[in-house]
């Protein structure tokens, strides 16, 4: 069982959910997610769980954290839950980012709520040779993330669509500005699919390896319903499930829709 320690607004419509757990089947890895039942007291509305990638994890404190934006009925209900509320979660689920390769100069590119899984990733990479490029609508949406990433001591670049930070524009444009003079050996990215498409295209063109985490409408989160099937570029053309083989895929592994 999980219990809410904190559920607070850390940006406009953006919430930080901190949970305490009794036990977990295994240590959650960056890029994995939990499927949270948001309906309370046996209600069937909404029926499906909501998948959230792990923002942070602390084994010593038995804490797992998520960052979410209130976008619909499910996240609205979630945002109204108070501390001490018990929650029903399944997880950790899905395939994580790979951490153990010798990756040299690493870039993390996150857009919007796609920033969330990159924080735990950045923390676990434990490498000083990482540069983080984040973008969101405005400064207010980024403030919380800025503070957290600064705490990790990584090189941080910020962009907003509505106002000028380092640039006025997207995380993608910000990253592209740096790409020529500072080519990474490996890239991790999460955010809007259009951004993923562009990052993937640039990396494949320049022979840069990397991984992306996609967001796909899920049903079960455990691989039984095949709602989140992704077309692949593999020869056998077998689909892959975002909830089991993903949500993290290698660049060029699945077909993205721009």
């Amino acid at each position, binding site marked *: 069982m999980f219990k809410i320690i904190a559920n607070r607004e850390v940006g406009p419509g953006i919430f930080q959910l901190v949970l305490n757990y009794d036990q977990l089947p295994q240590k959650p890895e960056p890029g994995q997610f939990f499927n949270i039942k948001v309906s309370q007291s046996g209600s069937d509305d909404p*029926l499906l769980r909501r998948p959230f990638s792990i923002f942070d994890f602390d084994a010593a404190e038995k804490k797992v954290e998520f960052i979410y934006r209130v976008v619909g009925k499910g996240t609205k209900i979630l945002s109204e839950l108070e501390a001490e509320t018990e929650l029903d979660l399944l997880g950790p689920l899905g395939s994580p980012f790979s951490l153990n390769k010798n990756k040299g100069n690493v870039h993390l590119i996150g857009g919007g709520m796609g920033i969330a899984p990159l924080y735990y990733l950045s923390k676990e990479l434990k490498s000083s040779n990482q540069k983080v490029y984040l973008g969101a609508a405005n400064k207010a949406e980024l403030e919380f993330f800025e503070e957290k990433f600064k705490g990790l001591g990584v090189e941080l670049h910020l962009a907003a669509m509505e106002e000028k930070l380092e640039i006025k524009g997207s995380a993608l444009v910000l990253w592209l500005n740096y790409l020529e003079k500072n080519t990474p050996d490996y890239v991790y990215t999460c955010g809007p699919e259009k951004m993923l498409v562009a990052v993937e295209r640039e990396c494949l063109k320049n022979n840069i390896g990397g991984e992306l985490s996609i967001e796909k*409408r899920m*049903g*079960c989160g*455990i691989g039984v*319903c*095949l709602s*989140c*099937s992704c077309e692949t570029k593999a020869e056998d*053309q077998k689909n892959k499930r975002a909830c089991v083989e993903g949500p993290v895929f290698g660049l060029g592994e699945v077909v993205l829709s721009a």
Partner: protein
Amino acid sequence: MPEKQSKLEQKITKAELNLSVVMQSQQKSKQNNLNLKNPLITASGTCGNGQELANFYDINQLGAFTTKGITVKAQSGNQTPRIAETSAGIINSIGLENPGVENFILEVLPETKEYTLPILANISGYSEQDFEVLAEKLEGREELAGIEVNLSCPNIKGGGMIFGTEPEKVYQITKKVREIYSGYIIVKLTPNITDITTTALAAEAAGADAVAMINTLSAMKIDIEAQKPLLANTFGGLSGPAVRPIAVKMVYQTFKKIDIPILGLGGVKNGSDVIEFMLAGATAVGIGTINMTDPAAGPRIIKEVEEYMLKHQIKDLSSIIGAAH
């Protein structure tokens, strides 16, 4: 009053409860009956091939297991989004993504060997001939206790549900499959029809051992922000608690019209739902959408059925089949 006292003393205990049910076969040999340790059967397409649920509990605790629907050739399924949510229900349009019957036999069936519960293969076709091919391929497969003939999938074009809405077609296909396949045959029916008893009767007349009802209800959802249908396939099939009263009604309606057993399914979430389906006339009860939202539901539901039996002092669960009539 003393009588009542003695009755109380002889209270049925949990150890005495008998949850087993027998799905009788129309074929003469008793060997063809489907004996279930309890009435719970996983609904096709909600449990993968069992491995995924094995992370949550031992599926051998269930009555039987139904595989994801298979077709003659591999299918990659429909475009995404394939799932939409509605109050107390989901609308899916997966489109029968599956590896095809050859790979099913080579890759999936061996994985089920460690299961001790009866396995049912769900088969779907785009033509009448497809069903014959599938029956031929699966005939004699010892891993299987039987097949579930899906004459009701709303998510494939030119087949599935089309067959299931015409009693003559249900009769023809079931008869062909019966001639080829010697194991237990369940025909899964669509609720998207004026009178489901007509197709149930057709399946029975053609030699089906049992009917399953209901498959999903044809439905759609519109994304009001995009002002477009949410599902890539436009239409899908509605399942979940929202459909349960419809399914219960159809089981109730069919029970007295046919002599073969009914596998009732649609929105089962709790033990009380299993009891409701059985009172309506179901011999076995499917669990589907609940596996997606609460993968560990199976054993909980069984426990809740036992609690009901203890509360109502029912020793044999099969005694309540059709008792609401």
